[in-house]
Structure formats: C-alpha cells, structure tokens
C-alpha cells in the first residue's frame, strides 16, 4: 500500500483486530452506530482478503461498517481522517467542517439550546425542549407549579405567547394526543363470518369434523389498517415560536401513530427515529446542522420536492394522510410550491395544512407559498393553541 494509507495498513497487518477496533471507535465517535461485532466483521473480512490498496481497504471497511446510505458522508470523512492519517480521529469530534453526526450528537458538538428555561438571547433560535437526555419526557416535573395548575388556561393560549416553562407544562398534553388516521383495507384477511373470501384452510380443517365434507364454509374479510401519517414541519425563523410545540405534537404522532416526521427550513431532514426514541432535542440538532442559515427563511417548495422525490413517490406518501405545518412564508419560487403540492396531493389520501397565522383576525392566505399551496390542500387549520391542535387531530382522522 502506498501513500497515506500505509500507516493504517501496517497497523492492520500487525494486529488486525486492534486496528479494526480503532477504526470502529473513530466511526462511533462520529455518530455511526458501530457495535463491536461490526469491528469483528471488518477484521474477519480483512483476513479473508487482505486489502491490496486504499480502494480495496475502503470498500471492505465500508461494507463492514456502514448500515445505511445516510452514514456515507460521515464514514468517508472518518475513513479519510484515520486511514490517510491526516487528522487524529479524536480531533474530528464536533469539528465545524465534519459531516453532521447521525442520530446521536457528540456531547461537545454545537447544539441548539437544550434547556427550555434558559433560552438565550444569542444567535441560536429559542427551540429548547425542556430537558436533556434522561430527564426529557418529564417536562411537568420541572418546577412549574405556578402554571402547571392551570393547564386548561394554557391550552387556549397561543403557542407564540407561551413562556418556555409554560410550554413544558403542556408537554405531556401535547405528546399524548391520540392520533388515528382513517383505515384502508389491508391485503391480509382475517376470519369473519360474513367475509367475502372463502378460507380454504380453515374450511378444510373444520371439514375433518364432518367426515371430510366442507359443511360449514369459513370466510375471511380483509383486515383494515390505519393509513400512514406523514408530518412535515417548518422550523424556519418565522415559525420559531411554534416549532417547539409542534415538535412535541409530532413526537406524540411518531410514537402513537407510527407517523413519519420531517423538519425543514432550507433543507429537509427526517427526524422520525429521533422522535420515536424520545429524543426531540436530537431531532432539532440534526435539523439545525442541516440548515445552517436556520432563521434565514424557508424553501418550502424545495423541501416538498425533496420529500416527494426521495420518500413520497417511493411509497411513503401513497394513500397517506400528510400534514404540513408551516406559515407559508416562502423565500423561493411559489410556483415550485404549487407544482410540488400538486404532486403531493396526487399521491396522498388527504393533505392538511396547519398554519398558526390562520387564527389571526382577518387572515388571508396570501403569503406566496400559502396561496400557491391552497388549491391542493384538503383542509387548512390554525393549530395555534393546544386546543386548536385537537381540531388537527380530528382532521387527521377524517375520511375523504
């Protein structure tokens, strides 16, 4: 092996398991979900076919360590750093130029404000989620007794006017809204007396009791399944006051109704997993990383296009209930919003748009993006308070 890879190659030669573990650790530090058996797999792979050059080493390591397409940028960066020996792997943590770690953020990486109560006046948007890691999820246990007693009043207060502590008091309420999308027919069937299909297997089994004569015909009816739910949340500057609350709402949907969740400002980021794991702050961190000019405005059209291209068309949006939460202030070209909304509405079962500004007196959907999207929206709702979100939940359950 020549060039920068030589050092690592020698280490691999001398003690493959040790070198494998070192690479695995560097990858894990960068946020890849690397378990010890991955390192073992890499060591076994190099023993089977000793890498001849940088490229064969790269492919062996990539196949052994990577488990999804999203991890490739991070993998490439770490591989470059470790194998080419340009950077000490330990230094690559939280580096400004390093690719965004996936899922788990390294502890010292720049993050969006995490503590709701101390949201700074600094550059970072006020999007804390009332708690970190372990404490997260028990928002009401924080000392907010003065407001916690008054959840009812808070439930009618515009999210934009809530103090962080007050929002914490609502967290449990927001997370626990019960979502149910309308059913669609599943392919699989279950036994039902008046079913439309004959179940030969069950009929035959029963026929044995009557001497092989299928006296009673067992039938099946196709089972019904809830439709998929997809939520797209605008977290740009103009939505700042609402994003925190809506993210809690999405967390409930992601966990309760197995919804898919995305956030966007200038770029679209999938946050389903972070929300399902009860790590909404990680979801925000990822979104913040993906959109450095976070409060700089929204590119709704591009976000919708990214969703349609990468996920929607492949099946995620098909026959689904899609909820877009955005004020419709589009920085880009409104005609793109119209085009992508049309595509989305063709795929989806129903499209619901939640615009917190819709509650304002004399609201007219004239913001460029909103006006462009409106013809393709089945229902426009405000969802600006906890109680108003009830209407959204109801709309999600409505049939066409």
């Amino acid at each position: 092996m020549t060039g920068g890879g030589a050092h690592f190659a020698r280490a691999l030669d001398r003690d493959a398991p040790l070198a494998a573990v070192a690479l695995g650790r560097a990858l894990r530090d960068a946020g890849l979900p690397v378990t010890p058996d991955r390192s073992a797999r890499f060591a076994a792979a190099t023993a089977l076919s000793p890498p001849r050059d940088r490229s064969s080493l790269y492919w062996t390591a990539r196949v052994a360590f990577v488990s999804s397409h999203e991890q490739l940028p991070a993998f490439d960066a770490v591989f470059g750093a470790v194998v080419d020996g340009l950077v000490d792997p330990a230094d690559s943590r939280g580096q400004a130029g390093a690719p965004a770690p996936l899922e788990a953020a390294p502890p010292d990486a720049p993050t969006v404000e995490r503590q709701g109560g101390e949201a700074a006046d600094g550059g970072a948007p006020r999007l804390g989620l009332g708690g970190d890691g372990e404490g997260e999820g028990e928002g009401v246990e924080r000392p907010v007794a003065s407001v916690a007693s008054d959840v009812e009043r808070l439930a009618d207060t515009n999210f934009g006017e809530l103090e962080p502590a007050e929002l914490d008091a609502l967290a449990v309420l927001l997370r626990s809204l019960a979502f149910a999308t309308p059913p669609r027919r599943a392919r699989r069937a279950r036994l039902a007396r008046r079913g439309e299909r004959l179940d030969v297997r069950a009929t035959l089994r029963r026929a044995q009791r009557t001497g092989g004569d299928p006296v009673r015909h067992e039938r099946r009816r196709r089972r019904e399944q809830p439709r998929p739910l997809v939520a797209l949340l605008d977290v740009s500057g103009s939505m700042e006051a609402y994003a925190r609350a809506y993210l809690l709402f999405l967390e409930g949907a992601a966990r309760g109704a197995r919804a898919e969740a995305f956030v966007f400002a200038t770029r679209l980021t999938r946050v389903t997993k972070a929300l399902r794991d009860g790590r909404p702050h990680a979801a925000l961190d990822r979104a913040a990383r993906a959109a450095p000019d976070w409060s700089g405005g929204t590119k709704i059209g591009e976000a919708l296009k990214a969703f349609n291209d990468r996920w929607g068309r492949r099946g995620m949006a098909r026959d689904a209930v899609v909820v877009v939460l955005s004020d419709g202030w589009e920085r880009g070209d409104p005609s793109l919003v119209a085009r992508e909304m049309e595509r989305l509405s063709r795929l989806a079962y129903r499209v619901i748009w939640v615009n917190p500004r819709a509650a304002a007196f004399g609201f007219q959907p004239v913001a460029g993006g909103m006006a462009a999207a409106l013809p393709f929206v089945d229902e426009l709702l405000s969802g600006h308070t906890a109680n108003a979100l009830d209407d959204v939940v109801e709309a999600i359950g409505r049939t066409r």
Partner: protein
Amino acid sequence: MTVESPAEVADRLAGVDYLADEGLATALFLALRLPQPLLLEGEAGVGKTEAAKALAQALDTPLIRLQCYEGIDVSEALYEWNYPRQLLRIRLAEAQGGDIAEEDLFDETYLVRRPLLQAIEHEGPRPAVLLIDELDRADHDFEAFLLELLAESSVTVPELGTIRATNPPVVVLTSNRTRDLHDALKRRCLYHWIDYPSPEREVEIVRRRVPGSARELAEDVAAAVARLRASDVQKPPGIAEAIDWVAALRLLGAERLDAASAGRTLGSVLKYREDQESVRAEGLERLAP
C-alpha cells in the same frame, strides 16, 4: 467452488455480462465468504435485483426469488398446505370406506414449498442465492419473522417440525427505502449502496446488453442519461432505460444521438409525461453530444 478475492467475483460476474465495480464485488465476496446476508440499496434501476441474478448465474446455482409486498405472510413466503389435494385424499379415503390419519394428511406430499422453504431445503452442491426483493414493501411483522430465519437458517413447520438448512443460502436483500428497515435486521446484514455506474462503465454495460451497438451511440446515450439523472426529472433513468434507449435507437437505424432521434425515442428513457415535456421544453438538442 469458492471465490478467493473480490476481483475473482468481478471476473465471474463479467463472465455472465454483469459488470460490477469494486465496491459491489467486495460486498458480494464478503456475503459469500463471511458468510452474511447482504442488504443492497440504491436508486431504482441501478441493478440491485440484477446483481443477485448475475451472482446466481456466475456461481451456477439456482436463484430463488421472493418478491415482497404489503401484507405478505408466511403462507406466501414459506409454505402452505395443498388443500385441494388434501380434500381429494379425504374423499378417496371415504370412498374406500377407510379413514385417514391427520399426520398422513399433513405430510410432505401435501406441502407447497414457497421461496424461503425452497432456499432452506436446497440440497446443493452449492448454496442457492436467495433474493428477497423490495423488503421495505413488506410489513414489520414479516421483517421480524425474516430476521429469525436469517439468524437460524432453519424454519419450523408446526405439523412437520424444524427444518434446518444443510446448505444455507446466500441471502441478498434489496430495499428502495420507502421506510427504514429495522435496526436489528440491518445489524445482521452487510450493507452496500449501489451508485449509478460511471459513464465509461455504463457504455460497457450497454454494449454488452445490446449486441452490435456502436460505441459512439452507446457513449452518446451514457452521457445523455448521466445528464438526465443530474437534472430535475421525477424518475431518473436507470441502467435498464439506457439499454432500452440504445436498443430503440439502433432499431431505428440511428448512428448517433441527435435531437431528432432523441425525440422519436424519448419514451424509452423517460416514463413520466411531465419529464418528457420539461426535457422537450429545454430543447432536445441538449441531449445530443
């Protein structure tokens, strides 16, 4: 017949006209030798399914394919009993005035083997290639069931007992990423993301698949297809589309790709009306070299 290196895998695949790059060859080599299931992902049309087919052909072993869909279950993936035949057997026993024991009714004669069972029972001499296609379309329960099967290389049929693979299959799974597969499944699998081939490689692929096609034409098409993939079309053309396109052009007697010939054959490469319209609006001459 064991392969000794990724390069040997690539050579064998080339022998059956499948051109794999180093990454895919490495992934397939490790899947064969570690051995471990391989999860292939990539844009539609980069040749995920083809890779498994070519591997089976190159290893001279059967390809057993399970196409997943929403609601697929054990009776469609693993096994089912042949009810009409069982019913006839009952009638026959009855007509002969006899009786039939249940274990005679549920014996292997009446077992319909679906792909997963076929793969487990495959006797060899070489392991079969089991292709589990578009796993993301199946639901979570099925994924969990599959995980168990992959881990154990055995299945249990309640009426017959446990069937263990004597010659465990080489398992290739593909996904179009309409949803995330379960982490536990990903952990068990090797992973490879297939990119679109480089234009040079695509020329080679096309020329192998369309016998007698001129190099210039294949080069024109590879370049045009690369431009289409980078542009803003809803359904970027895959390798199959490039092959179809060259075949169509050749059939019409075109020697090079120009605006006229592209216009007549656009339907073989772009499958959405909107895509065709936007490409025509931008000018077909932009597809020509």
